[in-house]
């Protein structure tokens, strides 16, 4: 039997099942060629949900304002493409930097508070930004949305085609890199200290952890990733509207994450994909009523499966193992 130290180290190694989302994503590229624009949207929302999981699931920062960073990233990438350059990779970098800057600055204030105050402040930041984007119509296009987002080919070679193939692979590659980074982060001592803060902040202070700096760091990183997600949306749809900064998007992304399961990295993948596919299918079946079914499902999950879909799978596997 391996020693406890070995066992603990092994728990953080990459397992084969963690490659499953990527196999599915590549298979979907070939299998659902007609749905690639929905596919891109799903990948973008997965990245957004992943960024949220870092703060909400790992560090335990309960926020309802994460669309602030998604929106800032979308506008930054959109405005950059419309006025500076249509080069996509530098556009994503600009989106990440802009969102990180807003995340850092707002985090300085917000992370001094806790609980309901913190929640209200995250909402307030989003509302402020949304109103600012609305008023600054000379640069954002205001309520009409940002027009004139034209993208150059990626690396000067791969054009964004009308079937959305390039866009899908572009989003997939970006998400993959972000996942590599996020996975490394949550399995590092830093990631473990975030879990420590979530589990017991008093004790983290008492063992000398610079709690506020850790929180600000992850909040900034998470904002950057959300900004990249927003940037991807702007670049692949070549449009930015005020809804990127809306409450609705902040709420939806929390719901997606809760669907999948928070604090487990892959909840973002399962939750965002399920939610987007359900929304797409239900909207076809019940154009008016689809929200009801999503709401009902959410109530069931929250009441009977706090760990989301992945939590349910965990439980099922565990009881299977016990029966054997």
């Amino acid at each position, binding site marked *: 039997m391996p020693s*406890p130290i070995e*066992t603990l180290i092994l728990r*953080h190694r990459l397992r084969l099942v963690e490659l499953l989302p990527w196999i599915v994503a590549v298979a979907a590229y070939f299998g659902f060629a007609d749905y690639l624009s929905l596919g891109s949207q799903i990948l973008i929302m997965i990245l957004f949900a992943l960024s949220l999981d870092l703060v909400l699931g790992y560090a335990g920062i309960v926020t309802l304002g994460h669309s602030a960073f998604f929106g800032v990233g979308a506008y930054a990438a959109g405005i950059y493409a419309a006025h500076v350059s249509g080069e996509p990779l530098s556009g994503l970098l600009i989106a990440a930097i802009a969102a990180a800057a807003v995340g850092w600055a707002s985090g300085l204030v917000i992370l001094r508070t806790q609980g309901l105050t913190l929640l209200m402040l995250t909402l307030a930041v989003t509302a402020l930004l949304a109103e600012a984007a609305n008023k600054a119509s000379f640069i954002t296009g205001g309520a009409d949305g940002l027009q004139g987002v034209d993208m150059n080919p990626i690396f000067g070679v791969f054009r964004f085609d009308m079937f959305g193939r390039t866009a899908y692979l572009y989003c997939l590659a970006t998400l993959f890199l972000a996942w590599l980074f996020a996975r490394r*982060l949550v399995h590092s001592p830093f990631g473990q*200290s975030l879990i420590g803060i979530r589990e017991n902040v008093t004790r983290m202070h*008492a063992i*000398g*952890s610079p709690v506020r700096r850790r929180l600000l760091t992850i909040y900034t990183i998470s904002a950057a990733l959300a900004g990249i997600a927003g940037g991807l949306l702007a670049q692949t749809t070549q449009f930015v509207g005020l809804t990127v900064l809306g409450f609705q998007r902040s709420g939806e992304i929390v719901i997606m994450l809760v669907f999948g399961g928070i604090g487990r990295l892959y909840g973002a993948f399962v939750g965002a994909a399920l939610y987007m596919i359900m929304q797409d299918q239900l909207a076809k079946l019940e154009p008016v009523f689809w929200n009801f079914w999503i709401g009902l499902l959410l109530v069931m999950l929250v009441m009977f499966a706090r760990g989301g879909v992945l939590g349910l799978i965990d439980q099922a596997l565990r009881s299977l193992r016990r029966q054997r």
Partner: protein
Amino acid sequence: MTPAMETIGLHRRFGALIVANEINFRLEAGARHALIGPNGAGKTTFINLITGRLAPSEGRILLGGEDVTALPQSARVSRGLGRTFQINTLFKGLSVLENVCLAVGEHSRSGGDMLRLIGSRRIVLEQAYALLERLRIADDALVPVKELPYGKQRLVEIAIALGLEPAVLLLDEPAAGVPSAESAIILDVIDQLPRDIAVLIIEHDMELVFRFARRITVLVQGGILVEGTPAEIAADARVREVYLGERQHV
């Protein structure tokens, strides 16, 4: 010799309520010192002032001769101040080993490492595990803390504090709430703490206090009533008076 920890004129008010009144206290290097006093005497407040959870209204706190009054909790910990809590304050969802690793990691300044995996600094895990062996909870290394019996959780409290390799260790009622069958293990652990650590223990259990402490300070209504050796304290008339209503403890 410089005391390991010292407070000078330490004072704390909550409005009109004085919870720490001009406390001048010295904890010598390697001390085995007990702080006793009736409920509400301000013992835990005193600990919170020393660790920085509370700011004093007046007065100074020195650690190893250095004034730390203005420093945040984390800076005091890195200067050698460790504590346990009266009520278990643990990372309940994490395993015992992970609980202690967090402390060892912060102490070795690798707690903020982002781009290496847990275990790439093996020494952190090994130090944490060695502590579990010393406290005889290594068999439970991978058990989530919330699944442990209360007595063992108290040991994890101590293990986390020891993971910081403190020069000053504050034990806030380490045996509180532990059934007497299990408390012997905790007393053993406290007896065997390294000699170079200065230990301040808050305790209601007089048997433990008189077995462990070589000096005792009695705190009443936020102020020091008397300080002395166990024999002096046991013979002191004022102390007996304070504890009159609670003689079952004495």
